[in-house]
């Protein structure tokens, strides 16, 4: 009898936990409420199936538990019942899959008006690049990465000269404008993830990956790395600030271009690299020291 009670309690407890517990997703800040809706559909369908199966089991244990003189029925199979169950399951699976694939096709087809921005991951910090006045990002190559050119922008490409470089600092985005995020890494796998935007994608050294979204409210959001990238992984935080149009333009005005940064003896850059060691290398050492110290 304890078994029956526990099985019922598991169903009741799980459902109550789902509705009453304080642990739920963060308030959304992008257009991907479609994804949230698909998750809600999934919760309903799977929740009903889970409750039905476990409660049916509880009933069976209650009704058919061994008592003196009981004998089980002998029924090797029941083709009709088995076919019906298969059809109902297929219908349930379709109800999950079809809306999911529709939203996926939205997710992978970037609207033409989306503005390109680039995110560059490296152990263990985030940098960003925005197209300059020409609206185009210059080409890049990991082989071009050096102390003076930490993002590996091709020095010979005229399109890259006016690109805005935001090295190891906050990224700002205007609210309500779709952006296509191009993702690049210069060392290992990383994953650009902002919980409030719901979207994420790995970055792979040697490739450019992407996803798109539209920020729907202003605010400051924390960037997390969601792909294990070495021991500094949990400290690889960044910041994205979603601004109103005016604030965004003001911020863009303060940023420096690749040409300005690579001019000899520039001042006011984010860091002053010296010799062969780059800023990131020093950061890493400092971060790890604090970790080891604890």
């Amino acid at each position, binding site marked *: 009898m304890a*078994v029956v009670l526990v099985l019922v309690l598991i169903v009741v407890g799980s459902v109550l936990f789902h509705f009453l517990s304080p642990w739920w997703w963060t308030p959304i800040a992008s257009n991907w409420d479609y994804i949230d809706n698909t998750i809600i559909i999934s919760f309903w369908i799977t929740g009903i199936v889970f409750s039905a199966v476990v409660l049916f089991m509880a009933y069976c244990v209650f009704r058919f538990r061994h008592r003196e003189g009981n004998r089980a029925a002998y029924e*090797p199979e029941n083709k009709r019942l088995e076919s019906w169950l298969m059809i109902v399951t297929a219908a349930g699976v379709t109800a999950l899959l079809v809306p*999911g694939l529709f939203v996926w096709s939205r997710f992978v087809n970037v609207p033409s008006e989306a503005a390109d921005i680039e995110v560059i991951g490296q152990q263990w910090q985030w940098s960003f690049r925005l197209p300059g006045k020409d609206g185009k990002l210059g080409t890049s190559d990991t082989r071009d990465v050096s102390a003076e050119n930490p993002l590996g922008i091709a020095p010979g490409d005229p399109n890259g000269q006016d690109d805005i470089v935001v090295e190891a600092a906050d990224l700002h985005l205007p609210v309500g404008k779709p952006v296509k995020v191009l993702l690049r890494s210069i060392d290992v796998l990383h994953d650009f993830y902002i919980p409030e935007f719901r979207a994420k994608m790995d970055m792979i050294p040697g490739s450019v990956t992407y996803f798109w979204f539209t920020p729907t409210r202003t605010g400051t959001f924390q960037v997390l790395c969601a792909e294990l*990238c070495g021991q500094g992984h949990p400290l690889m935080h960044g910041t994205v600030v979603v601004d109103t149009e005016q604030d965004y333009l003001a911020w863009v005005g303060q940023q420096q271009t690749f040409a300005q940064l690579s001019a000899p003896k520039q001042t006011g850059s984010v860091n002053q690299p010296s010799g062969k060691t780059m800023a990131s290398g020093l950061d890493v050492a400092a971060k790890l020291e604090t970790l080891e110290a604890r």
Partner: protein
Amino acid sequence: MVDVTPADAVPPAEVGEVELYHPHSWWTKYVFSQDAKVIAVQYSATATAIGLVALVLSWLMRLQLGFPGTFDFITPEAYYQFITMHGMIMVIYLLTALFLGGFGNYLIPLMVGARDMVFPYVNMLSYWVYLLAVLVLVSSFFAPGGPTGAGWTLYPPQAIMTGTPGGQDWGIILMLSSLILFIIGFTMGGLNYVVTVLQGRTRGMTLMRLPLTVWGIFTATVMALLAFPALFVACVMMLLDRLLGTSFFMPAVVEMGEQLQHNGGSPILFQHLFWFFGHPEVYIVALPAFGIVSDLISTHARKNIFGYRMMVWAIIAIGALSFVVWAHHMYVSGMHPYFGFFFATTTLIIAIPTAIKVYNWVLTLWRGDIHLTIPMLFALAFIVTFVNGGLTGLFLGNVVVDVPLSDTMFVVAHFHMVMGVAPILVIFGAIYHWYPKVTGRMLDETLGRFHFWVTFLGAYLIFFPMHYLGLMGIPRRYAELTDMTIMTESAHHLNSFISIMAFIVGFAQMVFLFNLIWSIRHGREAGGNPWRATTLEWQTPHTPPAHGNFGKELPIVYRWAYDYSVPGAKEDFIPQNVPGSFGLGPSREQP
């Protein structure tokens, strides 16, 4: 469909009896043994021993997650080494080895009515190579730099770079070498299991009369023989990248400010190879559990398994489909996004045969005569946790839902529920079920019930709430959960709760181990067939079965494995080797 008399279903013996190798000394009997039953115990003991290491590692990582900043010795470096070794040990060295090397070796020859595996010598080698693989793995704890901390998925480039523990030390080299050895050892054992099931069955044991345990282990072994080679080549290539500086998986990268010499390799190729093995691996663990739990439910509910033939086809369908779903682990890996349409569809299709298995388990309970023995309790708990974990798989398999949830604690909760907790509950149920056959004595009932309740409820309380941490967006593989804006105070409390439950559940396993050892001498005498079961392993003349299993004459099989509560029969079970016209199951309709 022609009705046939049972005697016609027993074909004449095609080949004579196999000459068995008879051991002459203690060494050849118990150490370098060629008896599948001894090898099974060797496999199980080794897997349990290394599994205990994994249990301790899980405690260490839960200490860090539940009480961040409290334990100074758990540096991020150490944390990543703990999670990596925990994951790899549990998936490969415990679950795969225990289900196939342990249960496979013990049950296949006995259940199909064979005297031993068809290649006993290779079977012995298989165990010793497995042991060597385990020793190489353990040695990495003592190597300079410690074991690898690359995560059990070992994704390059980080797996072989300095930012990862063991990346440029011995850790990753020993891990890859150990995996290569494991695969060599497994291949020897796996070929044995497959050939024994296909060629070693006794007279009358048609494929459609095999117990589902054998079907599960057999299909899983075939899958493993096809899937492990992908991991094998991936390991060899990564070893070459690491040792000889080749560039199979290494593109041009900058490491700590220095350009490395690698160029042109593909990190994502490794992921495809890894998951081409890795997804079938989930079912390599799950299918034996499916098979075993079917037999536990049927025996202890005194009722034939419902829809036997559908169950066999579902096992085969799941096995085949599991080879075309691997990239659902890679939806946000940066592979071509259109793959998502294909892999989401195949992944959700696999839910259909899986659901059929669940229906048939619960329909076996319907109108049964349910004995709430410990194996039955574990079987019921398996259904609860497997259904729970399987259903959250529908979230993660549905490509767009995976986008916010992938790489979060939701994934950790899902896969622990479905391929950690659920199969391990079956392993426990199976041990309580077959221990009397292996030792001749029953495990202690009171300790067993204590073990069951703490393990089942504790594991559910650990992993059910964990899904919601992932829904909040908390990433997995974070050694530090501090300085995160989404991490609320209550989420920290939940983490502490989960950690405390993990210690309690771990403690219950010590009680189980004590029971295992104590009952060898002090358990109640079991007799040959304490559960009154139908399958051949319970019909041996000796318990524990002697070398050669069946005494002078091999049994002849007249019926399927599920003639429980047959109308008209005197007892509520008819063993497979008993002739007669009662019962006989769906095989009666076979032409």
